């Protein structure tokens, strides 16, 4: 465990020792802030219309603001995460520091989990910044905290899935650009894979919907923790890490 934390700490410090960490967190905050601002503005107008005797019904801050906001936040992930994971293994291989890690008394699992947790910690920092926006909602409104908590859990799980996949792709190459590009493409594919689900057969439709990484997030944003989605994300993460381990091991044999 200490070894895992040592690697994770090194990874996290690595992000902030260079401009990478600040740029990624900064732009994440910028985009999230913009989404927040537009949704709040929209919400304001809606409630104004309601006050002036518009269509009846209740205004729900969670449903009308938080849920769409967190859905939008997943899009930032698509753009930012390839930049986080592309260097994890590729950079170590290019600079030769992988030799230090692989000749130290560490198991492959410790290195991989360390790298994964390091990247996840950076993501947690990004999410941490967005808690400011939530705090604003609590100051000026009265949203329910539970759906917000499940929403963040969902974001973290979905982020973890992407990160484990990005880690795997980075472990396949020495070239950061290649790793980044492939990661982005695969992410995007998982994003849009169920776009065709309306005109393929019902069986295919279920399969594609199940594969789609965004599909499983909806319930979390609504405040529901469904085991089905939990299992999906956790097994996705496990598979990504497992494939990474296989790639590292195979690389070792091939030299």
């Amino acid at each position, binding site marked *: 465990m200490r070894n895992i934390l040592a690697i994770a700490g090194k990874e996290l410090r690595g992000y902030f020792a260079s401009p990478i960490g600040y740029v990624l967190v900064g732009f994440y905050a910028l985009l999230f802030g913009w989404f927040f601002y537009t949704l709040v503005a929209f919400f304001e107008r809606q409630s104004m219309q309601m006050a002036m005797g518009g269509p009846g019904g209740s205004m729900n801050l969670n449903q009308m603001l938080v849920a769409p906001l967190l859905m939008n936040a997943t899009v930032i992930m698509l753009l930012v995460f390839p930049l986080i994971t592309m260097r994890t293994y590729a950079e170590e291989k290019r600079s030769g520091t*992988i030799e230090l890690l692989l*000749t130290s008394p560490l198991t492959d699992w410790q290195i991989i989990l360390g790298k994964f947790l390091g990247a996840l910690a950076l993501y947690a920092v990004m999410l941490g910044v967005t808690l400011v926006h939530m705090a604003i909602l609590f100051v000026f409104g009265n949203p329910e905290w539970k759906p917000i908590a499940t929403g963040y859990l969902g974001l973290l799980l979905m982020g973890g899935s992407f990160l484990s996949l990005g880690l795997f792709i980075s472990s396949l190459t020495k070239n950061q650009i290649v790793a980044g590009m492939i990661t982005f493409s695969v992410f995007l594919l998982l994003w849009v894979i169920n776009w065709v689900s309306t005109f393929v057969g019902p069986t295919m439709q279920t399969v594609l919907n199940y594969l789609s990484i965004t599909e499983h997030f909806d319930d979390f944003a609504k405040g529901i923790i469904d085991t089905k989605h939990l299992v999906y994300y956790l097994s996705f993460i496990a598979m990504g890490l497992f494939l990474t381990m296989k790639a590292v091991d195979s690389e070792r*044999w091939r030299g």
Partner: protein
Amino acid sequence: MIEVDHLSKRYGPFTAVDDVSFRVESGQILGFLGPNGAGKTTTMRIITGYMPATSGKAIVAGYDVFEQPLEAKRRTGYLPETPPLYPDMTVREYLTFVAKIKGIRSHVKDRVGEVMKRTWVADMADRHCGKLSKGYKQRVGLAQAIIHNPDVLVLDEPTAGLDPKQIIETRQLIRELAGTHTIILSTHILPEVSQTCQRVVIINKGRVVAVDSPENLTSRLQGAATIYVQADGPAAEVQAALQNVPSVTRVTQSEPKGELASFEVDTEKGADVRRELASAVVSRGWGLLELRPMRMSLEDIFLSVITDESAEAPAAPAEGPDEEVAHA
């Protein structure tokens, strides 16, 4: 103690290391010589557990590197060809990180300070690794290898890129470490081997071509010593005079430079005829301007080992390469 037993590494049809065996006793320094691409780095990477062998085994400090990798790695320090530094970390941060992953749990700070002092990098402790000069990078690499006080040290060209003073200091450090550590170091530089190592393994195309002490190797290979003589006199006469000295087998005139005549004098094995050569020139009234044994470079030794091996010719290294080849 390091034991390498019938080690082979194949990449598809290409054999990088072919049936290599050798032993290094505790506290000894073994020099690993060979041209680029000979399989030195591959062998070292197998010993350090970076990659597995195709067949054969390596035992480090009593642990098989493949069967018990963690135990073996805990007792091995490794300096790869390029020091594995993180450019964004300071030297102190870097060594602290390495200490942690090498399993040091207590007094990490003291240990880092100690190692920095020992490898003369303390003055750069708060500089980023990426901003260091080549010499400092190399020494931080060395610090990284010895930080957990391993039984076995594997150093891939530890003096590459250092300036002469640093080379001397590094060799000194390696010799100091030898008492308590078993060391393998690879190098291209022959004097380095004779100055630091007790045993030499010469490797070519993945195969061990010679294992011996540096003294034995040098004397075995110095079958015929060549002496360079430059004299101020009529070339043909000087040549004849030199030819008459006992034990001289052959005199060849090299490129004349103006008035001066220079010769390469081959002599029989073990005979030191420098005095006789000097007096042969001086007693005839010619000026003796230069007289020196032509040093056998690594290339010479190396090439003659290869020639010996492939031709199986009984002591015919006189046909060895001339200087041009040696310098090429």
